[in-house]
């Protein structure tokens, strides 16, 4: 990562923020930690006014949760069970390696990743969730999760001041993520630390956190130019391969197989995997990611 004065400027975000207003991005599973009251279903039952059911009192229950009115009427001791609602802290891990600065000169992958971060962050913040970010690279930029106004502006400032460069491992950035229930990785996953990154994600998933992987793809990677070219890896300049008629089909097959395998591995670990391709509307991508989370929550009976 480098600070660059001649980096492509991030397009205006007003339209994106307007487009994602009203979008909800529920937790894919009940929040298992107690936090500030929020909009996400918690695993815990609590004292919220939203009634769910009665349960007979058992020894050891908190007597303060007894429904005294019911006890007075029926002389039976029942507890009033209510659903708990909580906020879900969300931290975005944005890949700032050199491969994200593609294609030049617009850095479409980086721009799309930043737009997704801002869009999803705005959606989460609108739900009252603390939002933070870690920008992978050297040095790693960290914005701790916050709910205050101006958080989006702070994230935007960091993104604008960052230019993707180098090949710093993303797993290091993931390790700097504070203890929050939802971690969103925005990357092209082309770093050399793919396996380590997956292991770290598994650890967080095992701890009950929600990990979502947003795979950013460039259209030029999916459909490289038809003319013969000498491809050069931006993170390993010595890696040069000729892409022509005879190697194009093999490239597309290998790249497709890798993407499929990557998605399978991450999904098998319990993470949500989304693909975003440059050129598509970032608001649409945000809605798609949020909708996928909603569908998963519904399938699991969590509800919105």
């Amino acid at each position, binding site marked *: 990562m480098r600070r660059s004065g001649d980096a492509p400027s991030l397009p205006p975000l007003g339209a994106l923020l307007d487009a994602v207003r009203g979008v909800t991005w529920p937790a894919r599973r009940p929040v298992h930690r107690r936090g500030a009251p929020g909009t996400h279903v918690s695993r815990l039952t609590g004292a919220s006014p939203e009634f769910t059911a009665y349960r007979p009192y058992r020894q050891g229950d908190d007597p303060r949760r007894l429904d005294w009115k019911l006890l007075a009427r029926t002389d039976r001791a029942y507890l009033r069970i209510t659903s708990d609602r909580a906020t879900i802290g969300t931290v975005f891990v944005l890949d700032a390696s*050199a*491969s994200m600065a*593609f*294609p*030049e000169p617009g850095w479409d992958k980086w721009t799309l990743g930043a737009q997704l971060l801002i869009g999803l962050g705005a959606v989460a913040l609108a739900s009252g969730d603390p939002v933070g970010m870690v920008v992978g690279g050297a040095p790693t930029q960290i914005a701790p999760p916050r709910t205050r106004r101006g958080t989006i502006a702070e994230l935007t400032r960091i993104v604008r001041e960052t230019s993707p460069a180098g090949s710093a491992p993303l797993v290091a950035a993931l390790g700097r993520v504070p203890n929050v229930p939802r971690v969103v990785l925005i990357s*092209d996953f*082309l770093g050399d630390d793919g396996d380590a990154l997956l292991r770290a994600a598994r650890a967080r998933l095992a701890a009950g956190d929600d990990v979502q992987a947003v795979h950013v793809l*460039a259209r*030029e*990677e999916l459909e*490289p*130019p038809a*003319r*013969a*070219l*000498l*491809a*050069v*890896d*931006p*993170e390993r300049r010595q*890696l*040069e*391969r*000729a*892409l*022509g008629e*005879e*190697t194009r089909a*093999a*490239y597309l097959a*290998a*790249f497709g197989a*890798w993407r499929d395998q990557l998605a399978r591995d991450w999904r098998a670990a319990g993470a949500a995997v989304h693909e975003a391709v440059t050129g598509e509307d970032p608001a649409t991508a945000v809605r798609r990611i949020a909708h996928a989370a909603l569908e998963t929550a519904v399938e699991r009976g969590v509800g919105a």
Partner: protein
Amino acid sequence: MTLLAPIWLIVGAAAALGVLALHFIARQRPAPMTLPTTRFIPDVPARAASRAPRPTDLLLLLLRALAVVLLGLAFAGPIVRPTRAPIVRIVMLDRSGAVAQPDSPAVRAADLLRDGDVLVAFDTTASVVEWSEHETIPAARQAPADLTAALLIALGEARELSSRADSIELVLISPIDAAGWSAAVLPVRAEWPGGIRVERTHAGGQEALAHRIEVRSEADDPLAATVALLGRVGAGGVRLVRDAATAADSAWALDSGGALVHWPAVVRMSMADSTSASLGAGAVIAPDVVAVAPWIRGDSPDGRPIAWWVDGTAAAGESPLGTGCVREVAIGVPAAGDVALSTSTQRLLHALTGRCGAPARLGPVADTLVRQLAGGGGLVSGTRLVRAGAQMSPATPWLLAAGLALLLIEWLVRARVVRS
């Protein structure tokens, strides 16, 4: 502007087209492009063939095409020529003493010659005159003709004229006497690819006069009869003395340039002949003649041998004397019999009474030889006479230098492209 070898320009143009084609299909290192997913491309050699929709490396293409075209043009030999005459005539005019009336052939030659034509006036030497209306024809001389020299000079002039004439015609005005003919005539003539227009004039004149023989002998001398039989009696260029030669004879030869032939009527038999007298007959060999008769063999004469006995010893010798010469003949002619009247004796006498320095050969050349000399065909194209490499355009060195300079620049540009 014309080209000496247009095929080279075609070759150069074809090479330029080849260069252009190579710039469409040449194997080259493709243009680099950053691609984060490079690792998924199979590892094959980076230098791959590519068909570009447009020619690549336009500067290199321009330099290469221009270089090969310039080199082709250099070998093609462009020359800027003035207007070419349709026909240039080379007239070989015999001005030797063999011509009976020298003025008549000169008039004929003047009729044939136009401005720009070439006159080759020849006898033993040849002089070249580039004809114009102010030129005059050289005067005739007593010298014999040398047709071989005339042909060689004319062929050289024809090659010189080939650059400014579409066609060249050779004309020979001569009696074509045997005196001017040699074995080299026909081989030299074979170098001329076309025909030769031969206008044969009357022979005789001063050359014939020069071969008249003044005989000083007894009245019944057999050789006097032979001279009379040849029809060469009279004061001329040869004096045949059958008795002792005097100082006046030598002075005559010295002053007039004639040939004094001392052929004694009485030849003292040599010792060698006395040993072979039993043969009964002798053979004398002279140029173009072998005479067999009961000759009386005398002592070998002095001077350069011009006739030999059959055993190789000299039978007659010639010594130069001033502009003339003195010949000593040691061949005794039998007084009895008709040996002196025989054909072989006539030919022997003719051979020994030729002009000084050469055997005498008179008479016209046979018509068959003249027809061979004239040959077939007509005029000869000027371009046909230009031998490969014989002519070079003045622009060729410059064009070669320019082509090589372009190749050097191409090398420098290519090196810079490779480095970049």
